[in-house]
C-alpha cells in the first residue's frame, strides 16, 4: 500500500530535511528507539507507567444518544480524554521521556499549540526528573492560559514565541533552534506525527496503543470491527495512533477530519491535506499550506491543536493511496458538535475531536446502519473560555 522507498519515507513523503548539525542526533535517536522498542525491559516499564500513571487502558464508551442525534446505528468513543492530563498526547510524551532518559539526555524541549502536549511533556518530565522547556506561540499563550499555568505548576519553563504567526508552527521552529543549539544534551520531544524521520514513526509507535486498545474493545463490545473509524487531524498523532490498528482491515473505512476554519474557500483554515500542496516543512516532505513562492501560509482554526500548516507524512501518503479519506469541518460545525456531545452524552470534548464528531452526520448519510468508532482525543476544559466567547452557548 504505502511504499517505503527507503527508511523514513512514506512514498514520496517524509525524509530528513534538517541542518547537518542535527543529522547525528536523529541517527542516534533512531538507533536508541529501535533498541528500546526491542527491549522487553523498556516495554515493561512503558506498560507499567501507562497503566499506573496515565490510567490506561482508557475506556470505550457506547454513545447511543449521540448516535441517535446524528442518525447512526452506533457510535463508540475511544476515551483519550480520560487519560492523565486530559488528552492522548501523554502516550507519546511519557514514551519519549522514557526514551530520552534511556539516552542519557537530562533536558527536554517541546513545542505546544493548544498546550496539551506541553502539559503532557511537563508532567512526564516531572515524573522522570527531567528539565523541561516548552515553546509556545504568543497567540496560543493568550488563548490557552490555563494550560500555561499547568505547565508552570508541573515545573516546566514556558517560553513564549513571538515570531511568524505566533502559533504552533513557530513554536516548532523555536524548539528546533533550541535543539540545534543544545543538541548534545537535549532531547526534542516532538508532539505530533510530523517532523523529520524518525519522529513520525516514533510518535505513531507510542500512539498505536490507542488503536490496539480500541480494536480489542470494539471487538468485545460489538462482536466485530467498526465500519468506520474517525479522528481529527492536525499533525495527526491521535489519528495515526487509532488508524494504525485498522490499516490492514480492508472493510474498515478510515476518515481523518481536518480543521476547515472559516471554510476552505475562505483561505482561513488549517486543512493541509484537503487544501494543501506538496512542500517541505519542519524536516519533512508532506502536504502543506503554502503560497506559489513556497512560503508557508498562516492558518486559522478555532482549535489551537489543529492550527498547523502541515500534516504528518504518513497521512499525506495514506491520502495519496486513498486508504484514508480526509475531509474538513469548519469552526462552526466543530462548535455545534462540541455542544451536541456535551448535551447528548455528558462528555465535554476538546475542540479538536469536536471536528471528528462533526463528521458523523455526513457518515450517517452514507449508511445509517454503520458502527462508527471515534477517537475522542481530549477533553474540553481547556477550551471553555473560547467556547463561551464563540458560542453556541452564548
Amino acid at each position, binding site marked *: 500500500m504505502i511504499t517505503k522507498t527507503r527508511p523514513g519515507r512514506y512514498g514520496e513523503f517524509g*525524509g*530528513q*530535511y*534538517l*541542518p*547537518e*548539525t*542535527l*543529522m*547525528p*542526533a536523529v541517527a542516534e535517536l533512531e538507533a536508541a528507539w529501535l533498541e528500546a522498542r526491542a527491549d522487553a525491559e523498556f516495554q515493561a516499564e512503558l506498560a507499567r507507567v501507562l497503566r499506573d500513571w496515565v490510567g490506561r487502558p482508557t475506556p470505550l464508551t457506547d454513545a447511543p444518544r449521540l448516535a441517535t442525534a446524528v442518525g447512526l446505528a452506533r457510535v463508540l468513543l475511544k476515551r483519550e480524554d480520560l487519560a492523565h492530563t486530559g488528552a492522548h498526547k501523554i502516550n507519546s510524551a511519557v514514551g519519549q521521556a522514557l526514551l530520552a532518559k534511556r539516552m542519557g539526555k537530562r533536558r527536554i524541549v517541546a513545542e505546544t499549540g493548544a498546550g496539551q502536549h506541553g502539559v503532557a511533556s511537563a508532567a512526564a518530565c516531572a515524573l522522570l526528573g527531567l528539565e523541561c522547556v516548552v515553546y509556545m506561540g504568543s497567540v496560543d499563550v493568550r488563548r490557552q492560559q490555563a494550560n500555561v499555568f499547568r505547565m508552570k505548576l508541573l515545573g516546566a519553563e514556558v517560553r513564549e514565541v513571538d*515570531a*511568524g504567526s505566533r502559533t504552533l*508552527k*513557530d513554536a516548532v*521552529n523555536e524548539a*528546533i*533552534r533550541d535543539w*540545534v*543549539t*543544545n*543538541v*548534545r544534551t537535549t532531547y526534542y520531544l516532538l508532539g505530533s506525527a510530523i517532523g523529520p524521520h524518525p519522529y513520525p514513526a516514533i510518535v505513531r509507535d507510542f500512539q498505536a496503543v490507542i488503536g490496539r486498545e480500541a480494536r480489542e474493545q470494539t471487538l468485545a463490545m460489538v462482536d466485530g470491527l467498526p465500519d468506520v473509524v474517525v479522528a481529527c487531524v492536525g499533525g495527526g498523532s491521535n489519528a495515526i495512533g487509532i488508524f494504525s490498528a485498522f490499516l490492514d482491515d480492508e472493510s474498515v473505512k478510515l476518515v481523518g477530519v481536518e480543521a476547515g476554519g472559516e471554510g476552505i474557500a475562505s483561505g482561513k483554515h488549517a486543512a493541509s491535506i484537503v487544501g494543501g500542496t506538496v*512542500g*517541505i*516543512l*519542519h*524536516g519533512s516532505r508532506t502536504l*502543506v499550506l*503554502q503560497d*506559489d*513562492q*513556497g*512560503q*508557508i501560509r498562516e492558518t486559522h482554526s478555532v482549535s489551537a491543536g489543529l492550527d498547523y500548516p502541515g500534516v504528518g507524512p504518513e497521512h499525506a501518503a495514506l491520502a495519496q493511496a486513498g486508504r484514508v479519506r480526509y475531509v474538513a469541518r469548519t469552526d462552526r460545525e466543530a462548535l455545534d458538535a462540541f455542544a451536541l456531545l456535551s448535551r447528548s452524552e455528558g462528555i465535554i470534548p476538546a475542540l479538536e475531536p469536536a471536528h471528528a464528531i462533526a463528521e458523523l452526520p455526513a457518515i450517517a448519510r452514507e449508511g445509517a446502519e454503520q458502527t462508527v468508532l471515534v477517537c475522542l482525543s481530549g477533553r474540553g476544559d481547556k477550551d471553555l473560555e473560547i467556547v463561551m466567547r464563540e458560542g453556541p452557548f452564548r
Partner: protein
Amino acid sequence: MTISTALTGSARIARAFARARDANRLAIAVYLTVGYPDRAATAGLLRAALDGGADVLELGVPFSDPLADGATVQRASETALRQGVGLADCLAEASTIVRERDATVLLMGYANPFFRHRGGLAGFATDAAQAGVAGIIVPDLPSEESAEFDSALDPEVVTRIDLYAPTTPDARLARLVPRARGFIYCVSLTGVTGARRGLGADVAEFVARVRRHTSLPIAVGFGISAPEHVASLRGVADAVIVGSAALDAVSAAPADGRPDALRGFVAALAAAGRA
C-alpha cells in the same frame, strides 16, 4: 572590463578563492537577505559589500520558517516577505550584480522555495544558470536529501555547497566530504546563525578534521561578527562567511548611510583577513 557571464559557477567560485589565496589572505563572503531593509536597497548593499572587499556574495532567499537562523536573519526575512520578495527577486538581483561587477554570487535559502520555483528544480537550474548564479547553499538539505537537487543542477554550472557541523562525526566526513564541490562550508558552532562575542573554542580542530578529507577551500560561517574573529581564522580556514553581523551593521546605520556602513564593516573584516 569584460564581463564573463559565460564563466561557469564552479570556475567563478574557484577564481574567487584563488584570488584570495594568491594574495595570501582570507576570502570574505558576505550574506545579505534580499529585500532587507527594503527591496530597493539590495542592489546598493551588494555593491557596497563588493567595494568593501567581499570576494563572494551570498544572497539570502527569504523564507517563512528559517529554522537554522537566529533573530537577525529571521527579522530580515520577515521584513523581506512583507514586501513580497521571493526567489524570483533573488535571481534578478543576482543577475544584475553578476553582469555589473562580474561577481561570484551564491543563493542561500531553505529547500522549499527552490522546489516550488516555476518549473520545479529543473526550472530553477535553468533560471539560476541564466542569472549567472555560481552556487547554492541549502541549510536544510543534508546529503540524505540532496539527490533531487544534485540531479537537477549541473555542479559545473551551479554548484551546490555542502555544510558540515562540529557534530558531524569523522566517519560521516570521510564518506561525504570527498564528494563535495566548490568549497566546504564549515558551521563554526552547534546552533543557529547570529553574531556571537567569541568563536567556538574547537573551530580549528573541526576545520582540521574536515581538511583531512579534501583539497577544496574551507569557509567558516555562523557567529562571525568582528575583525578579531576573522584574524583568529587566518591559517585555519580559507574564507569566512559573515551574515547576521553584516545585517546588523546595515540596520544600525541611518537609512542614507547603510551602504557606507556596510562597506566600512566589510573592509574592516577584509583587513583582518590579510597578513
